[in-house]
């Protein structure tokens, strides 16, 4: 099967246990050291709490629950990414389990059976990395 080449662009690869996933680099703002997760009652799926960074409150979206399931290893860092809400964008912290990597790669369109939040695939040697769109991932979980 021939996959449609979308285009080459920058991605940030992040580990969750033994697997790696990617976000478009344009939505990633920084990789942060472990921080104090603060929680309060809510019932939004996947949100595990908030961080305070430089006086700003940033929600924490625990994507590992969806991407690798309940046996996800401890998350060591937070990848700060921008999520769109209508016309507005807002920072979201994504817990990851190790160092991230910035790379230039060509993304191909996902195959049919992958979840909607997988917006493309990166072929890195023998490793196929799913490119994730946070808005779609959160929406799928909320539905």
């Amino acid at each position, binding site marked *: 099967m021939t996959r449609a080449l979308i285009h080459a662009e920058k991605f*940030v690869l992040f580990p969750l246990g033994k697997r790696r996933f990617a976000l478009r680099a344009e939505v990633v703002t920084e990789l942060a050291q472990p921080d104090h997760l603060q929680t309060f009652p809510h019932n939004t799926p996947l949100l595990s709490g908030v961080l305070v960074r430089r006086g700003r*409150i940033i929600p924490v979206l625990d994507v590992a629950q969806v991407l690798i399931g309940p046996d996800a290893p401890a998350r060591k860092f937070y990848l700060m990414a921008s999520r769109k*809400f209508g016309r507005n964008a*807002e920072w979201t912290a994504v817990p990851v389990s190790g160092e991230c990597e910035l790379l230039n790669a060509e993304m191909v369109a996902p195959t049919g059976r992958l979840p909607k939040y997988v917006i493309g695939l990166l072929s890195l040697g023998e490793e196929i990395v799913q490119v994730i769109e946070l808005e779609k991932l959160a929406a799928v979980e909320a539905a």
Partner: protein
Amino acid sequence: MRLTKATAKKKSAQTEDVILFLVNGCRFAIAANAVDEIRNLDELSPLPLALKHPRLSKVKSTLVRGKKDPDHVFFVVDAALHFGLKSAEPNRVLVIRNSSAAIQVENIDRMTQISTVVELPAAFSGHERVWYRGLALLGELVVPLVAPEAFLNKGEQAVLLASWKGLIAAKGATA
């Protein structure tokens, strides 16, 4: 790895007096001017059977302040149930001003001033959008600033008041 600079927005508010209270170990803030009185559990009465509604199971008791306001009934909401927390031993009741609602909480932490109230991030999309006016920052501590009207909205108060009046009328008729 730092790629770009932070751009999150923060909404500042004027200084506001708040009461910090605890529910099952969680800390919340409520505007001090939204609270008419902080009481102990004296004078609470179990909710009469006629006032029990399946959708209002968080209402656990009634309060009639005999000396202060004998004609006004307050419906006491278990704050733990309201927030979906495990029930904790309540020790205090906050009577909400201009309302028929009161809330039973685990304890009062302290009264303080807040100068920064941040809008609840848009990522939060559940009931918390009704529960909270925003998030207060006390130094590095994030405390949800509760919306007093969310404990019992006007419709819920009307349903309970109607049932209460019916109960009082029925008692009067049999007396």
